């Protein structure tokens, strides 16, 4: 599998970006994920995941509006690339195939 790898945390962040649509910027992603995972995340971890994925071609971004709360600094809105959608789909398929292939022991 010579394809670019997507880590577990990266995958979560990527999916959050897709979920949040137009609202997908750093702080919002952090809030959303914190709520869903029920744990505290740091800006650093979210940002480094975002930057990494942008470099790998999973995400594109552009500047959004600036708010007073941000001290006049602009947000950066992320959106997933078609390639990212394809990879997400592939991973989901792989997982569901694996789930299907698993013997029925875990449920007992």
């Amino acid at each position, binding site marked *: 599998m010579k394809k670019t790898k997507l880590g577990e945390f990266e995958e979560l962040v990527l999916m959050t970006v897709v979920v949040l649509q137009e609202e997908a910027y*750093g702080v919002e992603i952090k809030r959303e994920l914190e709520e869903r995972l029920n744990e505290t995340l*740091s800006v650093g971890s979210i940002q480094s995941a975002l*930057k990494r994925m942008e470099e790998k071609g999973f995400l594109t971004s552009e500047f959004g509006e600036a708010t007073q709360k941000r001290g006049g600094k602009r947000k950066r809105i992320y959106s997933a690339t078609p390639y990212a959608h394809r990879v997400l789909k592939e991973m989901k398929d792989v997982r569901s195939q694996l789930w299907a292939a698993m013997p029925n022991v875990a449920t007992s």
Partner: protein
Amino acid sequence: MEDQRQHIGPPRWSQRLLRFFLRKEYLEEIEGDIDEIFEDYLEQHSVKKARRLYNKEVLKVLKPSLTKRLIGTQKLNYLGMLQHNLLIAIRGFRRHKTTFLINLIGLSTGLAAALLIFLWVDDERSVDTFHEKDDRLYWIMTNFAINDDIQTREYSPGKLAQALVNDFPEVEDAVRVANNYFRPKGTMSFGDHHFKASGLFASTNFFDVLSYELVLGNPKKVLSDKTSVVISEELAIKMFGDSESSIGKTVVWENRFFDTEYVISGVFKSPPKNASNQFNVVLSYQKLIEINKWADHWNGAFAETYAVLKEETDINEFNQKIANYLNTKTDTDRFTLFAQQYSKNYLYGKYEGGIQTGGRIENVRLFTFIAVFILAIACINFMNLSTAQASKKLKEVGVKKAIGANRPILILQFLSESILLAIISFFVSIGLVVLVLPQFNTISGKVIDLQLNGYLLPILLLVTFTGIFAGSYPAFYLSRFKPVAILKGRIGNLRGEEWVRKGLVVVQFSLSIIFIVGVIVINRQIEYTQSKELGYDRSDIVTFRDHGKGYPNPVPFFNELEKIPGVLNASNFIGDFLSADETQNNFSWKEGQEDDSYLFMSPMIGYDFIETIGMEIVAGRSFSREYNDNNRTIILNESAVRFMELENPIGTKISLGRGQTREIVGVVKDFHYGSLHQKIEPMIMRCRDRGKQYFVKLRPGSEVETLARIEEAFKRINSKQNLEASFLQDDYTELYDTENRVAGLSNYMTGIAIIISCLGLFGLAAFTAERRTKEIGIRKILGASRLTIMRILTRMFMRIVLVAIVLALPIGYFVVESWLQNFAYAIELQWWFFVIAGASALLVAWLTVGFQTFKAATVNPAQILRNE
């Protein structure tokens, strides 16, 4: 409250950290994110907690993937630029090979000279500092008021050490050792094997308090027995093969104090080479007391006292407390005490009128200055050559500035170039140092080896400093130009800079000329000390000592000597003639007047002494066996006669106190007792026929044979001892050992200074000639002769050197004048010393420049102008 909150911002330093480290393209977004979260925190938590959480977020953001990189377009530092700078520098070195070589040779010789001097200075400074309690170990010195003066002495009463411990709470412990006059030097024998032993009488706590390491034996006990000795590892190995087997062995030790059996109770490591006190046997001080009870008496000064003071003792207060301590103990109030740090005594050992005035530290300072000056001369070369070549670098500066380089960046570039050069020079200089170190050790009389481990930091500092100093001026000068002006080709005038360059050359040559004056004077003075008539004839005299016990009758030995045809005359005396330290007071010479406080020079000489060394008798007679002068009569020198204001000295009786008198039988012409550092002082020569130091006058021409026969005769009488003879002439030269070494070193250092200065001048001349080639071509076409061209080109340099001469000579005068103050008898400064110094500088400069200008003046003008 609501309004207030608007102004609460995130912690400043944390914000700065973020801005410094985060990549520029991420900064706005991420800082915004964190700010937004901070606002959230402010709503949920206290300000304090919000800030703490903010800090935490910032720290977590600082990940390698988000921070600036070390290389690439967005950088955390200037690594890339440094790389670029180094590349440019190396290319520059390759292109301007002559300049590079001149700079390299100059800087590396300069650094090598500085390194050597640094090693020497460091070695001097390390002397005696090996004692563990070095910072608290003090030498108790005595100031002795005599002859309207104060003499500072290293020795003190034997009782002082213990008394200090008892009476002063500040004194933790104190050691007494016998002073220099009471050092048992002689032969130690085990069976038929004889070895040279140089001993030290010391109190029992010697090894406990001082850091002479005891290899075998209990430091508290080895010296508790009068009949046992502790020997050095070196001696133990020589005598017994190894140190273990020496313990408990019985040896016989013969010297002037005793000829006794001793049991070896311990072995110590030989004193390190940076110890001022060198000895290979230590024995109990009690033994000295047994030999001479005055060794343990307040009115005898047989000991040297070293005290360890308690920590946090104020030394000034302590000195005040002990100053008059001896008044209560001795029967005179002429003595005052003071404590001097033990390890300081080596460098600061000179006192005048009871006040510390210098010592070896003067030479240390002198050479430190020389090192700094030589390095400065080498740095000036670099400055001059790089500013002279500014025009070649201007385009580069212009382009760089045009595309956005600012001044600090350019300064950094030029500095990195000079630092690179300094580093290369440093490696070359290490090679040079390794090469000349053996030679250097011979000249300086040291055993230094190059160990860089402990000196990495200072050396790094030295190299960086040299680089920065050398590069400072070019860096600030070159980075100053306006890019537009440069690129348009309007560089304005560089005249102002020429003044600076000339000034720097003046500095170089002034220093060199001062060095030359110094070298001339030092060498002349040394020549003077060797050629001056001393009032006696020191040629063809051998001197040696009988290290045996007691004072045996020397007549049998003289009879043996008489049989040797090569011996012209022989005599004996007590003490060491050249060290000039035999003194005596308590003389009174006027009826009813008890003026006994004057301290006379007073050697104790045997029969035939005056004849052997060829002193001139101006009145009366010499000591003679016929008159049985031993211990009965005295001979004065002319100074003493003048001092005592005696009209008819011969026959006058002088009182020695305690009812004893001595009759004056002769007067000798004034002669130099000791070195020329001391003045000729009033002297009373006493007659002792049992001296153990011998002077033998040889017939010139057959010295080797005669010496062999003297040794035979000596062996017949003193079977255990080896004859260690030296020539009086050599011993006398030895008195000026320090001066000789200073002279040797400064000769070389001056040579180096001159060579480096000339290298710089050479480079400058080459550059000037190159820049003026067109002018030279046109002048030649218009009819100028070679000579005219050469004159035009050399004129400027000659003027510079002349200015240097005018500046340097007065300074040089003051320097050498103050150096000559060290001698009671010194050469007169002659005008021609300075003429030679100036003329040689001028000549050397002219030759250097002349070579270049000759080359420039002989070119064919057609070739220069053809390219136009």
